[in-house]
């Protein structure tokens, strides 16, 4: 059984190093967090195209600004709820203002939201952010 123990050990160590290198070489692209979004905050105002959805990793809604529909990415559902949002909230056609960081790809109409304003109410999904 123990014909070449040192060779095997080397193979194991070599394999582990290769795998570690592979894992750390993966580029740090980002969608989660603010990495994939513009550094500066901005604001859009428009009408609700689809109400707040609490499904999935992030609460979302869609807002129409002129003729462009924006994907509004809110906080994780639990956090969005703490900020006062509920599933299905804000009816289609209602006027809202969305403050946050837009997607760094100018062809993508997506806003990572820190604040949502509707009807004089402010939903601070990320109160620590500008």
């Amino acid at each position, binding site marked *: *059984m*123990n*014909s070449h*123990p040192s060779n*095997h*050990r080397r*193979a*194991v160590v070599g*394999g582990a190093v290769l*795998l570690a290198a*592979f*894992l750390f070489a*993966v580029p740090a*692209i*980002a*969608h*989660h967090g603010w*990495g*994939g979004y513009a550094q500066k905050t901005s604001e859009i105002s428009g009408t609700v195209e689809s109400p707040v*959805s*609490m*499904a*999935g*990793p992030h*609460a979302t809604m869609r807002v129409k600004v002129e003729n462009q529909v924006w994907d509004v990415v809110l906080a*994780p*559902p*639990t956090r*969005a*709820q703490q900020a006062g949002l509920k*599933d299905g909230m804000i009816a289609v056609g209602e006027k809202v203002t969305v403050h946050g960081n837009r997607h760094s790809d100018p062809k993508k109409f997506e806003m990572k939201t820190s604040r949502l304003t509707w009807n004089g109410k402010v939903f601070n999904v990320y109160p620590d952010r500008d």
Partner: protein
Amino acid sequence: MRELAVWLQASPLGTLMRDAGPWTYAFVNLAHIFGIAALFGAILILDLRLIGAWRRTPLAAIAAVASPVAACGLALAATTGAGLLATRATEYVGNPFLYVKLPVIAVGVANAILLRRSGAWRALGSRDLSLGERRQLAWMGGTSLVCWLTAIAAGRLIAYW
């Protein structure tokens, strides 16, 4: 792919995931991680042993305990993973990491099935393995390790696309 995603999203699983309250996704995600931890923790030890580590510990002994833990972990990870995907399946259409993850899982599972059916695996505990058999097991252990590491890496990166 899109048709499959539309179907999955509209399935009762997708509806359940979306309608069962704001903590649903978080807890299913948590269970997915427990599944991965059990699967990978067990398979890592088995695969390293197959490759040639800890040769004084009998492979049959490691195989007997690692295999069921890995299988349970895989079952948990796969069922919760289907739920996570079903929540908003159509949003993942075109996500390259998903297209890496699902095939490597298929290869990892196929590799595990082939391993269990191999003469070398069935001979564990009853006789000494030949050099050829040990090499075969080492290659299959290496294949397994690459598959599961890639699946975990690609799976994590789905969220960052």
